[in-house]
């Protein structure tokens, strides 16, 4: 086992009753990689994300980050390890301002307690200034600093998607999980998003896991791709290899 594996899934499985949503999936992700996860609807991609982030408990198997076991940890502990994510159906704090949305995930990096915050003790005031500054930086990065006080729920779909990436970055993650970040975007927006994902990988030294349906985007952006079908990993490799794989062609187009 090479030491550069940042993430390692080992025979991950999850069944819901009789449905094997994720079935014995093993793979490794290298540090700094953009790793794509594709597959037909219902292939288990989002379930896999939920297993990684602790939102859904695994039925069996393990997932580790830099050799540290993440399976069995509560979601907030996984997040505290530096694993940030977005959601397929966008789960911003809709009733809160954009600024608050990017302040909240800074929680695990800060430590002031109830009384320290209420009394405004020097340590917590200093912490607030740092949080505020970082929040503005992130809003600038996603191009929403002009609308910081607006409620996140009032933003357009595309802006919500970008704000959600900004919110995940506020966690200061080492690994970023993006669940269909380009869903509902037009061609120009997809193009901008591709550049943006590359840019944040460089800037924040991220490893990116990406679920996406839009094949050209995945092929252009990802270093490696894993293909899921009915919960099983059917192919893994460089985009060109995966594209040639008979199993993948069968999964998408139907076997003869």
């Amino acid at each position, binding site marked *: 086992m090479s030491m550069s594996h940042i993430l390692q899934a080992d025979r991950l499985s999850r069944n819901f009753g009789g449905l094997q949503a994720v079935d014995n999936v093993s793979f490794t992700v290298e540090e700094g990689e953009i790793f794509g996860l594709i597959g037909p609807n219902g292939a288990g991609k989002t379930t896999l994300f939920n297993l990684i982030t602790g*939102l859904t408990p695994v039925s069996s198997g393990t997932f580790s980050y830099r050799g540290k076991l993440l399976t069995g940890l509560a979601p907030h502990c996984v997040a505290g390890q530096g694993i940030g994510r977005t959601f397929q159906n966008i789960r911003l704090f809709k009733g809160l301002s954009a600024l608050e949305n990017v302040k909240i*995930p800074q*929680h695990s990096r800060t430590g002031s307690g109830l009384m320290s*915050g209420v009394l405004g003790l020097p340590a917590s005031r200093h912490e607030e200034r740092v949080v505020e500054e970082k929040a503005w930086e992130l809003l600038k990065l996603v191009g929403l600093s002009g609308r910081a006080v607006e409620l996140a729920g009032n933003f357009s779909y595309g802006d919500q998607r970008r704000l959600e990436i900004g919110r995940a970055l506020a966690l200061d993650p080492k690994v970023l999980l993006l669940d269909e970040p380009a869903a509902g975007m037009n061609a120009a927006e997809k193009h901008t998003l591709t550049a943006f994902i590359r840019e944040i990988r460089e800037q924040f030294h991220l490893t990116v896991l990406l679920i996406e349906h839009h094949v050209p985007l995945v092929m252009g952006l990802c270093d490696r791709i894993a293909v899921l079908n009915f919960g099983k990993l059917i192919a893994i490799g460089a985009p060109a290899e995966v594209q040639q794989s008979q199993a993948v062609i069968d999964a998408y187009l139907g076997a003869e």
Partner: protein
Amino acid sequence: MEGFLQNYGFLLVTLVQQALLALSLYFPFMAGQLSLASPGFYALGGYIAAIMATVDSCASLRNALGWTIFPLEWLVAALVSGILALIVGIPSLRLRGIYLALGTIAFVEILRVLFLNLDITGGAIGIFDIPQLFEERWSYILIFGPLLVVVLLFIHRLQHSRTGRAFKAIREDELAAGAMGINPTYYKVQAFVIGAVLAGIVGAMSAPLLNTWNARQGTFDASVSYLAYVLIGGSRSLWGPLLGAALLAALPELLRPLRDARLIMNGLVLVVASIYLPHGIVGALSRLWSFFSTPSAARGGE
């Protein structure tokens, strides 16, 4: 002035006291938890104060401390309420929404039945002849007033702190809050405990005011009243519970000429408010304000 205080002083004290109890419900609300446990802790706090002020075994303590026994009563009530809230909160906050509300109603009922049957709480008769802190009832504003100011400042500061943001994140989306590194259980229990401590202190302050304390203090009816204060006033701003309590606690006094029919008015206000003011009075006012302060072009009107 003297006459005004004689007539309305007690009403004013009642309004402030009810506002404080509404705010005790507001804390778990901040973290999105519909808890109706406040009356239970209010009753508990009152009993603690009443027992400390009347039982013989505390007589030497009372003599030694003089009037400072009263702050000690508040402190003990706060501590016991806080510890009980911690014990009850950790398992019950696994429940969500209406189930948590039902669980907390059951908690209030259990406490009530306990108080009704224990010897130390005076059974059905309760505890009477509780020594007074002040000679005049309106003077109690001197303790309830400052407490209200402190609580409002506390909430105001809390809303912009790390802990307050964690509360709000859980209220908005508990699952997303977890994925953003916030431990939902920890903060839900914390919000629940703060509310319980406040209700306990208010109970301890109220026992001398009312002179007697029995199992009719802090019942299911009270749970519903406090909830109505918060919902009618508005659950998204600290001014909501305050306004709701002032309005609804004053209403029976203002409608005194209607006699028994005034309770119907109470119900009517609740129904009308929940249909036409889903965000409460403060919510409706702030919407109105933002509507008129936004230029019409920005409203997206063609």
